[in-house]
């Protein structure tokens, strides 16, 4: 075929010539975005390695692979790394890359601040991991770091795992706050002419909602950790029950952030679904406005539900009832989202390229994650399964099976834009199926385990639980293997992949109107926006289907 003449295959700046930028203190939001994404992926691998060790320990009922303190350290750092150094900063990375392009801006509002936000992270992450080298090991009280357990450290050791943990989380928090200031200002002030709020892609709406949550809720965690640090090292008594302090107050402050944090992680994932699903079903996004507003709705409601993590913390009955109701309310805007995604792909001709597979897989898995979540919001049920593997299964359905899958969808979807090259479709599909099967094999068994009463954060258990645990461990190792084709694909495609055109998926966002990869200032000329996003229904846009395009390329 002769298509090659008609496709612009000469991206303006070739990544091969400027790979050094990615190791430098750059203020270009695209470079910073890639820096975030690559760094967090490395932390994802480290966190995954810790998960493998946990799963290795749990194959047998006995505690035999690692000792108890190390096991405690493993799940503590695994959870911490996955949340604070994988999902949240990865979202910051991809948002950094995409938001200015999607709203037609030349850069973020404060480029220097943006670079600083990023460069705080690598040292903080290294600091956190270095605590494995301390004589008493890492923090051991889980990613919640609940007092009084987190205050039980050997006396006379001012520098201990817990101390390091608090310092690094506060640093990461400062980076997130600065990032949030930047995102909110960018979205309010840097939009191209005509890019009104209701012409912004849903992804941008999701980022805005998530970053507003960071601004309003994250400082409460920072405050809690500062007080915890004082209790730990300077003899104050805020959270020490034996000295009149009150550990429950810590729980309130902690969950005031950490519940919305779930949505800080999930909203960008929902945004990714809203970009990928229409592009591969060639349908306009169903109910664009309601999906956009639902992002804000989810954010607002999620601020008022934190006590559902404390149903068993001597919470009075009226408070339980109140927060049970608000928790269930979150299901409403979330349901709007799920309905919108389904209606978008309803009765359309699906193009099952890798991004679409990951997006559909992730959205489908969200069903189970969401349903188990509504179950947990019911007080009687929560009291039954509190601190069991049911919880672990539930939140992994969200954090891995939904959000991490969405992240992979995003990586494949925007890979051509970011690198100017296509990835290898076959390997992408291998990656998807390994991940999808592995994820369900790992995390589904945790649900029955929890219902049967297997408690979390233990390294030895009653032998009657072993069957499901073996399955989960096998799934976990499969997940470990599943990243190999991904890495091979990314590295191989970067070096040898086909050149990608500016808009390989024939998608409608502003980011696809510039070159792949985009030039330093994003657009030759700032576009003037005169129509809403998602024009896929428009016959003009459906003349060529991404699927056909792919065949032409090959």
């Amino acid at each position: 075929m002769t298509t090659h003449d008609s496709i612009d295959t000469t991206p303006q700046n070739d990544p091969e010539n400027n790979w050094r930028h990615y190791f430098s203190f750059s203020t270009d939001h695209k470079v910073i975005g890639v820096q975030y994404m690559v760094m967090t992926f490395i932390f994802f691998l480290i966190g995954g390695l810790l998960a493998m060790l946990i799963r290795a320990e749990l194959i047998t009922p006995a505690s035999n692979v690692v000792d108890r303190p190390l096991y405690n350290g493993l799940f503590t750092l695994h959870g911490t790394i996955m949340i604070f150094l994988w999902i949240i900063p990865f979202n910051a990375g991809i948002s950094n890359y995409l938001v200015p392009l999607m709203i037609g801006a030349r850069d973020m509002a404060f480029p220097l601040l943006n670079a600083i936000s990023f460069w705080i992270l690598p040292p903080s992450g290294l600091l956190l991991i270095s605590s494995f080298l301390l004589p008493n090991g890492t923090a051991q009280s889980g990613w919640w770091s609940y007092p009084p357990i987190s205050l039980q450290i050997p006396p006379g050791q001012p520098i201990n795992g817990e101390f390091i943990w608090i310092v690094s989380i506060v640093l990461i928090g400062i980076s997130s706050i600065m990032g949030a200031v930047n995102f909110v200002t960018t979205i309010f002030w840097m939009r191209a002419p005509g890019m009104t709020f209701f012409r912004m892609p849903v992804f941008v709406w999701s980022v805005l909602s998530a970053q507003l949550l960071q601004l309003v809720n994250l400082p409460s965690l920072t405050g809690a950790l500062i007080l915890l640090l004082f209790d730990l090292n300077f003899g104050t008594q805020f959270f020490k029950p034996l000295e009149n302090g009150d550990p429950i107050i810590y729980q309130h402050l902690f969950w005031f952030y950490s519940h919305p944090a779930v949505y800080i992680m999930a909203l960008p994932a929902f945004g990714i679904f809203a970009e990928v699903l229409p592009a591969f079903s060639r349908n306009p996004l169903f109910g664009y406005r309601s999906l956009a507003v639902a992002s804000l709705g989810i954010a607002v409601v999620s601020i008022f539900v934190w006590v559902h993590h404390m149903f068993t913390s001597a919470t009075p009955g009226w408070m339980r009832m109140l927060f049970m109701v608000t928790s269930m309310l979150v299901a409403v805007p979330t349901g709007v989202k799920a309905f919108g995604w389904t209606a978008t792909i309803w009765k359309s001709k699906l193009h099952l390229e890798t991004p679409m597979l990951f997006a559909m897989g992730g959205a489908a898995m969200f069903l189970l994650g969401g349903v188990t979540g509504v179950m947990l919001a019911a007080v009687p049920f929560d009291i039954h399964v509190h601190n069991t593997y049911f919880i672990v299964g539930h939140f992994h359905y969200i954090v891995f099976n939904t959000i991490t899958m969405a992240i992979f969808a995003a990586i494949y979807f925007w890979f051509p834009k970011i690198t100017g090259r296509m990835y290898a479709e076959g390997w992408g599909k291998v990656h998807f199926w390994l991940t999808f099967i592995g994820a369900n094999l790992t995390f589904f068994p945790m649900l029955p385990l929890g219902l049967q009463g297997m408690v979390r954060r233990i390294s030895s258990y009653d032998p009657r639980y072993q069957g499901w645990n073996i399955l989960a461990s096998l799934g976990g190792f499969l997940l470990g293997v599943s990243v190999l084709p991904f890495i091979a694909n990314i590295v191989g495609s970067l070096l040898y992949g086909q050149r990608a055109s500016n808009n390989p998926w024939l998608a409608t966002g502003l980011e696809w109107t510039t070159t792949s990869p985009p030039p330093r200032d994003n657009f030759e000329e700032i576009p003037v926006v005169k129509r809403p996003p998602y024009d896929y229904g428009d016959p003009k846009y459906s003349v060529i289907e991404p699927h056909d395009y792919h065949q032409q390329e090959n």
Partner: protein
Amino acid sequence: MANNKSYESMNRGVIHVDESPIPLERWRQYLPNWLKRFLPVRGGRAEDHHGKAIFGFTVFLLSESIVFLSFIFTYVGLRLTHSKNWLPPGISGPELSIFVIINTVILLSSSFVIQPAENALKHHQLNKFRWLWLITICMGTYFLISQGIEWKNLDFGLSTGLVGSTFYVLTGFHGLHVLTGVILQITMLVRSFRQGNYEKGHFGVSATTLFWHFVDIIWVFLFSLLYLW
């Protein structure tokens, strides 16, 4: 294949003419003017660097106030549930002395000095700006010194029961902000001597002013909780 090409040209720049009314326009007309300037809803204000920076800084202060709120929440929570053992035997809490009142009055009235200072700079009255600015610095410094003296004279320390924990952490965190404010003010004053017309310092001055008001408002809450409750 020609379709493909036409698609590409169609999509570049997105200059389709679809003049559907901008939905936000309807309620936007009810917004007061200053809010319209502060929240550009139609996009395309990227060139207004000052407005953008002040917006960002305000958003940051919103965030910062939540840290204070979390401390205040802790204070109120502890005080409500542990009022009996609030003060260890033989210890009296922070006293509302004339000393503290003067200090508070000085801090709060400095807001009424710094604002005219900022306005003076806006009207290019550099000398007036410098004098008023200097007075603010003195007032802030007075507050810091006098709070230091108060700390020294109290009969409880950081680890003396809940009263010590909460008092020192709350006033300390606030004091740290006052200190930051004073340092910012000194920087701006020095900078005002370096550049001829001091245009570049303008964002710094506005932000410092905003920050100073913020520190003052926080003190109203802390003062009421710590000394009047």
